[in-house]
Every structure is written in structure tokens, then in C-alpha cells.
């Protein structure tokens, strides 16, 4: 177990700045998830931590060591790749023990550690199989096993579940969570799947265009997003945003300088037309089983998403919308949270 610190870390490919100065500290045993839209630099940042990409400037510490120039294998990190990256010419046992062999760990010790990891991940019956003979989930477990045997201080996961089907993804997600609980290592996990981020993370780092937008626990990010981007990125369906000038009526608890108000679809409640804070007309009702998602057009033309449990409302129906005052999110002109 060990901590990890990034100080003003930057990366550029030629003239393109991919990471534009990231400061971050990850505590011992913490599960940190990097999220962000495609091209935000989350995978690049992970690869910089792993040593697979050089750091253009700034400082990366793992424990107390500055590791900017340290080769990947000496950083005490292990990585699980999106495509699993299992060596197709080696069987599961050799795949898992390959790193130890390169590091000249004696065969006996190697067999012991591979056996231990295989037991932990229930891979024992598969040790003599080749990657092509394994299912997606099994390959993923082997990839995790390969990371475990090296006994790393930090685990890095680069979208490890994105190649699995939905059901297996849920299963592997819980396995990774259980693994973190059992091993207690520091883990950094890159994903674009919000559910993965929310369920796994002790701390989420939201990235956009090579910069950190906000760092916090899943609850903090959901309940107190630091800016408009995070507000709309975290949570599904995304938060409804309304410019305050365009909105009729007074907003309870509106702080000075607030220019936008945000409302999560699941916080909005339906009322009679004209009775709520705002009103509109249902454009579309999407039935999703347990609840429906209503698309409500406001008088100003904005379309709000509203979660609605057990309601059956036809398109064209006029509705009123209300919300508890403490569930309103206010943002200033620059998009920052206004308190």
C-alpha cells in the first residue's frame, strides 16, 4: 500500500497539450476513479502514472520516491488493460508468471505466487489453458491475476470492463470491489461508465480537456457538483440546467451572482399545471420499467428531463414541476457553483 502524488503534471504530444497541469493526491489504499468524456486525457494520465508515457513536466511521486524517470516495472505499479493484453502464445500460468520470470524470481516462488493469485481469483482449473480458450470474463480475471502476482503497491485499471457484456460487467465490478477490500491496495481506475465510477470509487476525479474539474467522493460530486460541467457529467440522466434570466418566478435560496439553476431529473416532482415552480408540456414519455422519463418542454423552449415513478402521462399533457429548495443547484456566470 502506498500513496501517490501528482504535482502540476503535464503532457504534450508535439504541440498538442493533452494533460495541462494536474495536481492530485491519492491516499494509501484509496480507490480512485478517473472519469471524463472521450479525449479528456484520463487514459493518458493513467499511462503516465504507469510509466508507459513520459511526463513532459511536473512531478510524480509514488510513496516518497519521485518516479518521473523510473521505468514502468520499477514503479511498483501493475496495470490491467482494456483489451486484457494477455500473451496469446503463453498459457494462463505462464501469462501470470511472466513478469516474475522477467524479474528472475525463482521458479518455486513463482509457482507459489501464481497459485495463490489463481486461488484468489478462482482460476485454478484454467491454469493450463491458452487465452484463446477463455471467455471474456475469464480473460479479465487472468489479466487481474497477472497484476496481482507482482505484488504491486498500486493497481492501475484502464477501462477494464468495457469489453464485457452488461451482465458480466456488473459481476466483474463487484469482484473488483471485493478484491480492493481484500487486498487493500491503492487502485486507480479509468472508466467512462458513471455507474462504475460511482459504485467503485472512494474518490472520483473528473477530467476535461486535460484538466481536473473536480475531485471528491461520489456523493460530493453528485450532491455538490463544483461546476456546470461536473453537474451535467455526473448523474444519469444528466442534470437539467436553466438560465435564471429566462426562468420565470423566484428561486428559493438563490444566492447572489447565480446565473444558472440546476435540477436533477430524479429530484423534480410533477404537480398540477401552474402550481409548481415551472411548467411545461410533455413532449415524450419514455417507459423504462420501474419509472418513466418525461421530456418536458418549458415555455422558453428548453427541454427538461423528469424522472417519474409509476406515472403514465401522454405526450402533449401540460404539467407543473416542483422541487425541494435544498435540491436546487446554483451556478454563476463562469459556470462555478454559487453558494
Amino acid at each position, binding site marked *: 500500500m502506498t500513496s501517490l502524488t501528482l504535482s502540476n503534471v503535464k503532457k504534450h504530444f508535439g504541440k498538442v497539450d493533452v494533460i495541462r497541469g494536474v495536481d492530485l493526491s491519492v491516499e494509501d489504499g484509496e480507490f480512485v476513479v478517473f472519469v471524463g468524456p472521450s479525449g479528456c486525457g484520463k487514459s493518458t494520465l493513467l*499511462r503516465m502514472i*504507469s*510509466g*508507459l508515457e513520459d511526463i513532459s513536466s511536473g512531478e510524480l511521486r509514488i510513496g516518497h520516491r519521485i518516479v518521473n524517470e523510473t*521505468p*514502468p*516495472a*520499477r514503479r511498483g*505499479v*501493475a*496495470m490491467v*488493460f*482494456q*483489451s486484457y*493484453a*494477455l*500473451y*496469446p*502464445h503463453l498459457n494462463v500460468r505462464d501469462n501470470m508468471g*511472466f*513478469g516474475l520470470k*522477467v*524479474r528472475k524470481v525463482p521458479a518455486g516462488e513463482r509457482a507459489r505466487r501464481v497459485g495463490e493469485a489463481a486461488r484468489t481469483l478462482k482460476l485454478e482449473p484454467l491454469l493450463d489453458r491458452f487465452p484463446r480458450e477463455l471467455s471474456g470474463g475469464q480473460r479479465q480475471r487472468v489479466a487481474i491475476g*497477472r497484476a496481482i502476482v*507482482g505484488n504491486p503497491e498500486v493497481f492501475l485499471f484502464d477501462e477494464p470492463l468495457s469489453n464485457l457484456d452488461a451482465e458480466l460487467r456488473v459481476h466483474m465490478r463487484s469482484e473488483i470491489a471485493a478484491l480492493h477490500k481484500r487486498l487493500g491496495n491503492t487502485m486507480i481506475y479509468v472508466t467512462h461508465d458513471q455507474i462504475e465510477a460511482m459504485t467503485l470509487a472512494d474518490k472520483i476525479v473528473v477530467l476535461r480537456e486535460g484538466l481536473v474539474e473536480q475531485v471528491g467522493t461520489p456523493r460530493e460530486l453528485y450532491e455538490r457538483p463544483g461546476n456546470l460541467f461536473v453537474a451535467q457529467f455526473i448523474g444519469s440522466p444528466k442534470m437539467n440546467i436553466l438560465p435564471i434570466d429566462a426562468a420565470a418566478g423566484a428561486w428559493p435560496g438563490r444566492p447572489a451572482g447565480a446565473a444558472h439553476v440546476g435540477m436533477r431529473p430524479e429530484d423534480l416532482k410533477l404537480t398540477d399545471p401552474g402550481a409548481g415552480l415551472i411548467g411545461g408540456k410533455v413532449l415524450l414519455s419514455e417507459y423504462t420499467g420501474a419509472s418513466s422519463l418525461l421530456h418536458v418542454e418549458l415555455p422558453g423552449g428548453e427541454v427538461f428531463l423528469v424522472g417519474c415513478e409509476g406515472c403514465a402521462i401522454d405526450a402533449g399533457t401540460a404539467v407543473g414541476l416542483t422541487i425541494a429548495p435544498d435540491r436546487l443547484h446554483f451556478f454563476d456566470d463562469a459556470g462555478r457553483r454559487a453558494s
Partner: protein
Amino acid sequence: MTASLTQRRVRILNQICWTLALCVVAIPFVFPFLWMVSSGFKSAAEIFGSPSLVPREWQWRNFVDVFNHQPFARQYFNSLYIAVIVTGLTLVLSSLAGYALARMRFAGAALVGLFLVSALMVPEEVTIIPNFFMMRWAGLVDTHWPLILLPTFGPHGIMATFLMRQFFLALPKELEDAGKMDGLSRLGVWWSIALPMSRPALAAVAIITFLNSWNLFLEPLIFVSSLEKFTLPLALSNFTDPYGMPLWHLQLAATSLAVVPILVVYIIAQRQIIESFALSGVKG
């Protein structure tokens, strides 16, 4: 039941038709080979005297005389060891160079690629004279060095490099990253990951290179003059009487012996040879 029986009959009939058609098409290719082997067992007079493929009298002596006429065993060995060395060298160099061109970002990489491609466009016959002067300057004329160096570093070696490069380009980059995470150096990634995964391409390069070296004629003709340093293609053209007329029975017996290693290679690696042509985009 009846329908499936009929279907099976149609399938068998179809197969028979195809086999017969292929046999007919194969005649122009197989006949010269059979003629060569059968003529190797005939006397000089019978070769053009009888159209039959079966010799009237089996002349086993031809296969002994081949070795008495000139140092054929030595020449056979020359071809074999040169082909093995050229194949080994080409495998090492083309896989290293191909890997560098496919995976490493270095200044002038595009220029190196262009330079290599341009070398492919010059026919070997054009470069043979400057090469001769270069080898003479280096004191390598009438040695086997030109027969090793020119195929390895010449157009054939470049072709092998490009073949390997194409293969390495298709290898997933994440595998190499995984290798680096496991502690491999760049050379280690090449040796432990890239090479074991490119066995089909290596086999293809090995087979094509071996065949090319085995069949090399122009270079031995230009660079080698001592009889005991001849390679097979040159030796085969040397089965002549004192007036320079070919001794067909010996020449064809020797040629039959010369194709043995090629046949062995082909039978062992038939699949790879076909794949190799598919891989290189060269039509055989």
C-alpha cells in the same frame, strides 16, 4: 433420407469432377518435373529417342557419375550451408529492422523506409556490376561472401523486412505495453513477445529466403569461378562435354537431386508457403 442420400451423391460427384479438372490443369506443371526425374534414369541417347516416361533401362549409374564429373557433393554442401546462413541472417535482420520500422519513432524513419523501397525498384541486374566492383575492392570475389551478403542486404532482405514490418504493425500495441509493465526492455519485447507471436511471418520469410538462396544463379555466375566453390544452379549448368554440349542425362539426374531439399521444405511447410504468399501480397 432419400434426399440426403442424393445430396451426398451430388457432393461426391462434384468432388470427383473437381479433382479431375485440377489433375488436367496440373499436367503442364507436373509433366516437366516427371520428365526430369525419368530422364535422369535414362541414357543420353534414350532421352530424346523415346517419348515414354518409363526408362527402357534404368541408368542408376547417372546418379554416381554426377559426383564423378565435378565435385558435386561439395557444391551441394555449398548451396546448403549458404542457404542456411542467408536464411538465419535474414530472419534476424529483417525481424529487427521490421520491428524498428513498425514500432519505433526515430528521426528519419520515413526517409529510411523510402530509401529501402527505392532499393526494391532497381533490378538486381542493374546493380550487379557496381556490386562486383565493390566485392572485388573488398577482396571477396571467388568467395561465398557475396552470395551471403547480397541476398541478405539486397532487395530480398528488404522485401523480408517489409513483410516483417507489416506483421509487426498488426500486433496489438497493448501487448508490448504489458511486456514493458512486466519489466521487458525494447529488445526484450522484440524477443519475448513480438517474435514468438510472429511465427507465421518468420516461417514465411524463412521459406522464401531459403528458396531464393537455393535458386540464386546470377550472383554465383558473376562472383564465383572455382569449381569447388560453385553452388548448385551453377554446377547444374556445368554438366557439359568438352565441347560445351549439355550432358542431359547427368544434368537431369543432378537436377533431380537438387530439388530434394526444396521438396522436403515444401512438404513440411506447405501451409506456411501458401500463407506467405497471401501475407506478402505476392502471387506465386
